Structures are given as C-alpha cells and as structure tokens.
C-alpha cells in the first residue's frame, strides 16, 4: 500500500460500546474482549481487576452503572470452551437506563475470583450461591459458605460434570429377582 493511500484513508471509527472505551481508557489492560450479543454489550475482563472494573463503570459519569443486579457463573465444559468457568455480572444504570454484562474467566483447577462484596453488598448472597453451585471461591468475601445446599454437601451441583441425580424408580421389571417387589 502506498503512503499516499494510507494518509488519505480515514481513521477507523471506534464503534465499541462506551463502556468498553471507558474501560480501555481508565484501566488499560483490564479489558480482554468487548463483544455484543443480541444488542447487549458484554465485556470480558481480567479476573484480578474485576473490582476496579466495576468501580470504574460505576463511577464514570457518562456510564453510572451503579446497580449490580446479578452475579452468576457458567460452566463451559459442555461447550469445550476455555477457560472453563465464567463469572457473569449484570450491571444496570438507572440514570442512563442501560445494561452492561461483565464477565471474568476462571480456569479449571484455580477456581478463585476476587469478591466484589465489599463494594456491592448485594453480591454477598449472590457470590455465595455461585460458590455453592459452581465451587468458585471468592477471596475477600466476608461470609463464604453454602447457601442453598446443606452445609456439608460435597459436590457443586451446577457443574456440568455433576449429574442431575434423578433417582431410578423401581418398577417390577427393573427390580432384581431376589429383592422384594
């Protein structure tokens, strides 16, 4: 390509969501991938920087994503994606009436993520549920213990490698002959 053609080409427009741009400007290196799904902005960020990321998105005067609606997790084992887990945060700005989804990747064997409970009290039980169901521990959580399963339950039920656990029903044709019908 000649230098004249390069000089005349207009600079590529940054069409990313304003949250992605603000994040890149305020916390360089935190944003791993900015994407969109069905019209909703999804930001994949570095696991260790999730607290600063959420603080920035909340404090930015043009974003004001000050309401954490949900913290959940997804196990991509069945889809063969890496890293195996994603912790998903749903943010909502009441002032600007928009939603942004933020995700962090949590690899298998290292299922820890920083807790955002110190900044967002609502995350207390939400992170407990993620720990209970997926086995992802949140460092800095004030009270990390199981919330839905019994306190001494051994598995993390929502993981894809844990079976649904339906009990087999004994019908007359699958009860062994020595057992009472």
């Amino acid at each position, binding site marked *: 390509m000649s230098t004249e053609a390069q000089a005349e080409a207009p600079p590529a427009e940054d069409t990313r969501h304003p949250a992605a741009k603000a994040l890149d400007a305020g916390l360089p290196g935190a944003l791993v991938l900015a994407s969109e799904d069905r019209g909703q902005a999804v930001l994949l960020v570095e696991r260790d920087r999730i607290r600063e990321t959420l603080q920035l998105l909340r404090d930015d005067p043009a974003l004001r994503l000050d309401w954490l609606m949900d913290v959940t997790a997804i196990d991509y084992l069945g889809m063969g994606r890496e890293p195996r887990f994603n912790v*998903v945060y749903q943010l909502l700005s009441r002032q600007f009436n928009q939603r942004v989804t933020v995700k962090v990747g949590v690899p298998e064997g290292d299922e820890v993520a920083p807790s955002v409970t110190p900044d967002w009290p609502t995350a207390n039980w939400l992170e407990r549920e993620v720990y209970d169901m997926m086995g992802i521990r949140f460092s800095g959580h004030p009270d990390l213990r199981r919330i839905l399963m019994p306190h001494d339950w051994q598995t993390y039920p929502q993981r894809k490698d844990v079976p649904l656990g339906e009990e087999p029903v004994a019908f007359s044709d699958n009860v062994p002959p020595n057992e009472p019908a």
Partner: protein
Amino acid sequence: MVTMETREGEYGTVGIGDLAPRVRQDTMLINMGPQHPSTHGVLRLQLELDGETVVKCTPHLGYVHTGIEKTIESRTWQQAVTATDRMDYLVPLINNLGYALAVEKLIGCEIPPRAQVARVILSELQRISSHLVWMGTHAIDLGAMSVFLYCFREREQICDLFDLTTGQRMMTSYIRVGGLAQELHPDFPERTRKFCREFPSHIDQYEALLKENEIWQERTMGVGILTGEQALALGVTGPVLRASGVNWDLRKAQPYSGYEQYDFEVPLATEGDCYARYRVRMQEMRQSLRIIEQALDRLPDGPTRTSDRKVSLPPREEINRSMEALIHHFKLVTEGIRVPAGEVYVAVESARGELGFYVVSDGTNHPYRCHVREPNFVNLQALPAIMEGRLVADAVACIGSLDPVIGGVDR
C-alpha cells in the same frame, strides 16, 4: 492451586454451632422456622436476642431447593417452561413470560399483537393474585384474620379465570416461547371484565379494614425501615424498593410486551417501613386493574403464536398440503426448537421485583444454562438489615412486608 479458606469449617452442626464463634454470653439464640406459620414458606431464621431486641438475624435457606436451574438444562426449550412455573409459585405466568421473552430474544422471533396483549392481561392478573396472597398472609400474621379470607375469596376468582383459559389454576405454563400455549377461551375477556368491575370495591373493603386501623398502624408504621440507599446497595427491587422512595419499575423503564402503550402509575412511598410497603402494594393492585381494562379494550384478533415455523407447529391443513410444513411439524415434535447459540439476560417486573433470566444457548434443542435472578432471593438479603436492632415482635411484620416466596428464594 490456590486454596482459600471458606467458613465451612466453622459451622459444624446445623444449630447452635452455626453462631458459636460469635455468640455473646448475654444473648439468647432462638430458631424461627423452618416450620413456622409466619415465615412465608420454609425459611429458617436464627435470631440472636438481647432481651427482646434482635441483635443478629441469620437466614438459612435451601429447604425448598429443587435444582430448577439444573433441571432446565435437561429439558427442551419448550419443556423447560414447566420448571419456571414452580420457582416463585405465586406468579407462574410472570415466570413463564420472563423465560419466553429471553428465549424469543435469542431466537429473534416476532410475537403477534394478540399474544402480546394477552400476556399483559395475564401478567397483571397474576400480579393482583400474588398481592392478594401477600395481603391475606401478611394480615393474618399480624392478627387480622378476616382479611385473609376476603383476599383468598378474590384470588379464587382469578384462579378460576386462569383455569378457564389455561386449564390450570396455578402452574399454568401458558405463556410459552412463541406466544401462548393455546388460543384464549372465548369467555375469558368478558369474565375478566366482570372481575375488573367488581374488584375495586373489594380493595376498598380491605383498606377499610386496615388503612386507618390503629392496631395495623401500630404494628406496621415505623417498623422495618429500609432506606433508599440501603435498598439500592442490597439490590432490592420491586414494591419494597418503591416504598423506600426509588422510582424504578421495569414496566416503565424497560417496557416489554407492549407495556409502553398502557397508561398507569407507579406507586411510590418514602418512609420505607412496613406500612409504606402495604400502601404501595394496594395501589399496585389498583394500577394493575387499569392496565387490564386498557388491554382488554385493545385486545386485537389474530393468532396467538408466532408464524415462524421453526418455533410454532403449522396448522393441520397445511401439513396435508405442504411438504415443508410436514417436515417442520416432524422436527418440532421430535427434536423441539433449536435456538441459535448466544447468551442473553432479559428481565421482567415480577410482583416482587426484577425477575431476570440469563439464558445461554449452545445451538442445540435444550438450554445450556438458565440462571434465574430471583427478586425473592435478593430481597431477602435485606431481612437482617430491617430486623436487626428491632424488637423480635416486629420480626413477623418485617418478613411479611418483604413478601418472600421461598420457592423463588431457593429454586
């Protein structure tokens, strides 16, 4: 591998040991629940009392956890709607609607106008029915026993309306991906109008019994105060948030299913106590009636399911004529709907707050993940905040005013 200590080790047995490291010698530990008439379900509260004052309230959940989210992963997209009925069991139609909207957003299919209006009518009837149960149970908890009977008498009429058109009183599974399960019953609009004509006098009846009632006011005014900032920080939504002064209702802010067409108000209060929450919910019932009447006026003719043949079954005559229709029918009955891969979070305004569905599809015929952001679960986090520091006698009023449905809390 990073190891991290959880607090699991500190909690040996389920009982007094749960609070052993922090219990003061001069306080008493009382268990409220899990079997208790006033905990609005199977909720266990561990109360640490200093005389009559609640020093600490620790809710223990999970008694009704049935693994609904995991069950949904083993069902097809259409089968999964039956699981959504059984979460917050007082608003099955609203649960159905949230799930259907999320999946329809993933598919990208159009819902015909008649189905959209019908969805609004059904959601608002469900909201009234849910508030009636709340009103009845909250009142009887505090001793107003007649109110319970009157509220359930009206709720019976709504259950009859649902029975008429959906075939079920409660677990309807009527609002499905692609529209409604079936055409509305021909008598449904007229009988709903009859209900709307009679109901305002009933709300007046409840208010006549409670609103200026000195005992009711003594037990709910100034009790269980939750400020707007506390509510927002705890993620509380719905009538509890609006009674604390924050004007946020998804039907107005992020309308779905045509809610922007209807003229209604969002009731607000500022005190944030139990009495304010009572007033907000009573007004919400009146506003829901307004919406239903407008929607009935608007109810257009037409199909109640999308014409997208990848989602809805073709009509039987078409199957006889068209090979394509036959193939669609075959695929839908054997495999079910296939939803394009992607992730979406869709929220509706349930009777208790923001009901969000985070649905993930991997392109197959069953959901890969369906996480439900339940308002009951998140709102219940506020219970310790409104109960601690107050008298144990107010505990029942506090729980009732937050209106938790444990099926939604535990899923």
